[in-house]
């Protein structure tokens, strides 16, 4: 008999009665959240610290979780807010600076290259993603790396569902422009 896997939403609902249920959620999402934050803010150690903060806030506010949205969307929203606050605090006057390890993680997955049209050079993509503004990078992250649906992205970023598609298109256009400039630079040199 197959064991019924308890859904994230059920675990969240049970957490108020049994704290241990939340540990299962931590087990399921800790690494994903850390990777997500690391790709946004560019630092692994900082991402780990922020991940702890994300789960701490999620635990404290677990009673506010609305089952009309997915738990992962709610958790990613907290991670998004923490990342944005971190960037505002630390990078107000300069662009995000990425650890080399984080840059490499951008193109570990070959399927990502296929999804972002016509990309053949992973180095160029890496540089392009690093140079993108955090907002564009984040939406490409959610769409292509995390493979979130438009509704989930809308819930995470608290934007309208209709604006997700155009926002992704604009982010891709910006990335393509950066990549084309880099390709041009390489050709000339």
């Amino acid at each position, binding site marked *: 008999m197959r064991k019924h896997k308890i859904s994230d939403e059920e675990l969240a609902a049970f*957490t*108020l009665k049994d*704290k241990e249920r*939340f*540990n299962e959620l*931590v*087990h399921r999402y*800790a*690494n994903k959240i*850390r990777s997500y934050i690391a790709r946004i803010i560019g630092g692994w150690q900082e991402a*780990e610290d922020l*991940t*702890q903060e994300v*789960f*701490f806030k999620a*635990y*404290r*506010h*677990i*009673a*506010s979780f609305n089952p*009309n*949205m997915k738990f992962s969307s709610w958790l990613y929203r907290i991670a998004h807010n923490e990342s944005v606050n971190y960037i505002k605090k630390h990078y107000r006057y300069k662009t995000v600076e990425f650890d080399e390890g984080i840059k490499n993680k951008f193109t570990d997955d070959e399927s990502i290259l296929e999804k972002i049209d016509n990309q053949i050079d992973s180095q160029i993509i890496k540089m392009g993603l690093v140079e993108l503004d955090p907002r564009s990078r984040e939406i490409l992250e959610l769409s292509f790396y995390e493979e979130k649906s438009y*509704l989930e992205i*809308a*819930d995470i970023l*608290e*934007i*309208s*569902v*209709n*604006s997700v598609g155009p926002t992704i298109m604009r982010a891709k256009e910006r990335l393509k422009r950066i990549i084309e400039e880099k390709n041009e630079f390489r050709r000339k040199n």
Partner: protein
Amino acid sequence: MSLEEKISAKISQTEPKPKWEFVGEGIAKDILAAVLIIVAIILFGIIGYIISHFGPWERLPGQPFYFWHSLLTLPWEMILSVGVLCALIYLIIRKAHFLYRLSPIIIVVGILVILGLGHLIAEAAGAHETIARFAPAKKIYLTQGRILSPNRGLVTSGTVKAIDGDDITVMDVYGKKWQVEINTTKSTIGKDLKVGDKVMINGIKSGNIIKAFIIKKIPANWRGQTRALFPKISRRITHLY
């Protein structure tokens, strides 16, 4: 220590906040939004009432750019207040009940529709007539309506038929006679009038008596009596006095 262990250690030192805190917060936000919507409906209604009763679009014959001049007499403070309230309402309700999933335009249109419906319901119920009886509200209506602004709110126009001290008799184009009371000791209006002059009068109407704020002679090239934009609902604010 692994990341999971660090997180577990951190959360073991605390407890989740109780549900009632979030339920209370949600209810408080809903109540705040409802109160702001009601205030916005009242202000929106006052603006509609003032525009329909004070007639900012009435023509000012002989005045260049009369339309732009009439724009100056709109209740801009109230319009700005309604705009600020709409922005606050939008910000409060957007995050509640997943409304952010909708396009912002739909949310804004929804707010304006609610304000418009609220205004119509208030008008039908005679809310403004009741509100205007209270002294502070009366003052707001009069101040926002710019009643004391010259050239504002034409009451009537016609030909001077008789002059008797501070009272003059004016016959309008429909043949109705008006007794116009002016206080020439307090102003210079009406002092240079004579029988046969065509005049425009701004003031307070009661029956066929007008307490004039201002009387102006109509230029010879004026084409005829103007009508208010909404003649059927263009009642003068006699009940405010």
